[in-house]
């Protein structure tokens, strides 16, 4: 089978998985014994009086399967996610799609940087296996792994603020009217924060893969041929070590992206994650469901990309 055919077949396999995710997400929300109208209206007597009307306007007066159909059918046929519950007349897509780009570049930069740092660290650590440097790297990656990223973000905010004798809000939070780039300290701090977790995760991966490859017979052969250590490491070992890496990275991307919620909240960055949190705090459920669908579909798409990318980089795999 050609790569194109394989790709097309996998794209079609996207359909049942996406439907499955939509069912999962929708019923997870709909089956909870909670009345959404109450959650929004609370004990406000004015709203309580109109609760039936509110419920009808949100389509909640119908049975759950009908509600699912009314939600899912427009979504799958014309990408219509419905209308926001909290702001009248605003389509849900307006609530998070404009921010997708922001999140993407914020995490793109971080992703590339952490890949570079991690590859260097991983190679040095694995070629000096069990050395002091290796041990320290291993420990530090675990430390980096364990720091919750909001904690790190807060620590960076605090230390920068006390060092520059300025208010945290003045340095990091976008004041009204400021453009995104004028808020560069927040962006740099956010990148730094994410870099710690990203580098820790990726370094461990590169190191273990490299150790695995360096044990192989063909590396011994390459050394026996009299190749320089440099050629052995970069020409033979690294390439093979990075092969399974492609899959892992592609699969972890959606997780990293959705983890953005915390970083974006800490640094008040206008991204998808922050819009998700805002919608969730306001109980704007159509938006929450839509963002979840977005991340879910993205992750399955990445699963397919990972499969194909692995086939492309690894000549042994035939479709």
């Amino acid at each position, binding site marked *: 089978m050609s790569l194109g055919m394989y790709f097309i077949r996998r794209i079609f396999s996207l359909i049942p998985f996406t439907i499955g995710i939509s069912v999962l997400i929708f019923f997870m929300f709909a089956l909870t014994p909670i009345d959404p109208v109450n959650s929004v209206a609370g004990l406000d007597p004015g709203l309580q009086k109109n609760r039936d009307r509110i419920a009808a306007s949100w389509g909640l007066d119908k049975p759950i399967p009908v509600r699912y159909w009314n939600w899912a059918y427009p979504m799958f046929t014309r990408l219509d996610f419905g209308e926001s519950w909290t702001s009248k007349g605003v389509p849900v897509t307006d609530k998070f799609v404009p921010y997708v780009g922001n999140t993407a570049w914020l995490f793109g930069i971080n992703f590339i940087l952490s890949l570079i740092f991690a590859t260097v660290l991983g190679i040095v650590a694995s070629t000096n296996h069990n050395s002091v440097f290796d041990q320290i790297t291993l420990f530090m990656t675990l430390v980096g792994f364990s720091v919750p990223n909001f904690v790190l973000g807060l620590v960076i905010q605090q230390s920068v603020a006390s060092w520059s004798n300025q208010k945290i809000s003045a340095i990091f939070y976008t004041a009204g009217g400021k453009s995104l780039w004028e808020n560069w300290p927040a962006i740099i701090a956010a990148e730094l924060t994410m870099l710690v977790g990203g580098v820790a995760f990726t370094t461990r991966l590169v190191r273990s893969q490299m150790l695995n490859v360096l044990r192989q017979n063909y590396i011994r052969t390459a050394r026996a041929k009299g190749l320089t250590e440099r050629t052995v490491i970069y020409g033979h070992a690294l390439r093979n070590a990075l092969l399974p890496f492609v899959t892992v990275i592609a699969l972890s991307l959606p997780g990293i992206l959705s983890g953005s919620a915390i970083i974006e909240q800490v640094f008040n960055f206008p991204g998808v994650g922050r819009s998700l949190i805002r919608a969730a705090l306001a109980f704007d*459920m159509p938006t929450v469901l839509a963002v979840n669908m977005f991340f879910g579909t993205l992750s399955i798409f990445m699963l397919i990309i990972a499969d194909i990318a692995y086939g492309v980089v690894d000549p042994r795999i035939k479709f």
Partner: protein
Amino acid sequence: MSTVQENEYVTPTEGKYSSSIISKVVTVFSSALILISIVVILVGLLYLLISIIQYQDFNNQISIAKAQYDADFRAYVNKGNDPSTFDAWNPDRYKPKDAVGGYLNPTQTLRTGIFLILGAVIVIWAINKIYNIYGQKSISLSNEGVKINSFKLAYSATSPVKLTFLPERFIPWESILDIVVKKSDSVFALLNRSLNKAVIYTMDSSYTIESLSFQNSSALMDKLRAYGDSLDERVIDFGYGAQLAVVWRRMKRSKVGMLGIFIVIIFTVIAILAAVFTTIWPPNEISHRFVEWTPFYLRNPNYGSFNSADIKAAPALTQADGSPGYLFGTDHLGRDMFSRIFYGSFYSILIGLIATIISVVLGGFIGAASGYMGGLVDNITMRIADVLMVLPGLPILIMIGATFTPVFKTLNIEGAYYIVVFSVFSLISWSGTARYVRAEVLALKESEYIQAENVLGASNYRIIVKHIIPNTLSTMIIIFTLGVAGSIQAVASLAFLGFGSQSTLVWGDDLASAIRDSDFLSGKVWWVVTFVSLALFLLTLGFNLMGDALRDALDPRLKE
């Protein structure tokens, strides 16, 4: 084999078997329906849990309403009115209100839960019946013999020609017989006389029976049982006692791992002390007596001071008047941060543990069942697990949190909110554990002692619970330890993002309220965030270090 009666070889020309298309359809549908039913049962259990919480809240509200009524009545009488004229029973005023305005009905929730569970159980039972009759795998009869795909087969001796195929692993025998199969290394037939059961073992998914013979094989049976018993003995002898010593020796090699264990033990001790030192538990009650009594700089974590000097007080060993100071300072309500971190450790660890237990146990059971049953169930489960694996957790966690926050806004039950949220979340997070455990089970399934159990007539349930799960424990422990670190972080993140529960003392809540404070933003109050973050980081690091060392010690294969 002297007692084999040659003339009783049977050629199975007549048999009860279903056509392959119907059986395939039935198999696919029943597997899918059973999986769905399991999920429905879980949802039903969740309903039961929520209904219990709602009942508790309901009772709370009733007592509040009663107290209100009493107070009104007393005030009415004290004014000099005639008690008999007190007609202030206003249903709106004294009606118990539940979490979100009196619209949730605990009885209804309970009924829905029971209905869901019963319905799912009936569906599973019915499917099992249908599957028993129609849901066979492909069985082809020919003159060469019976070809069976991954199936246990038995012949009833009273009517030798009648074939009955059941999906269970064991089929009752009426009398004693032996099966002669085409001999190869991977196929052998055994039978169990005392339990009236016979089993054909195969490592391959298909094999051919050359012939069947009836034979009095008590000698064979004895041999078999001896074989099985000795294997069982071996399992016990080389059990966990010996293994633990080995694991501990390997653990001690890793200094970093010992550091992790040290940190975890310290925090566990703190959490236990927190429970012991509190004369009032849960520590939500405001008690001045408790404040006076405190040793070691401990105060009531929920008691805020109204003295302006105690609000946002900087960390100090002693106060101006010589009394114990606030070790970690106080927050914007004047609550002592040292006590909040001290008592918060209890819930932070407990909720992390419970959240992980729920997901690991669910994943363990699904993984063990799917690996052990194999076939289509395994296939479907693993496809689902694949997708759930890559599904990002945080957005879904936020969604669940947002859904449940309104319900628990007024509930005063510690930890209930997090437990509910994480049990819903476990519907997604079981996949990682399930994959590891399944891989383990696939290897275990072929081991000799499991086969011996099989021969002795053990049920699937017994094998899974008594042998498979104990043997996958080491994997589970590793996943669990690393999972606790993740759960503690997840709980803190959830609380930090504003989806916490006000009734539970969790570190994330402190962080969340601290960063919304204007004095933190101006850089003045640094201690709240610093100390809470430090505690959170140390605890996570401890569990991560410990889990990492455990992984090296218990199972070198799991090493990334």
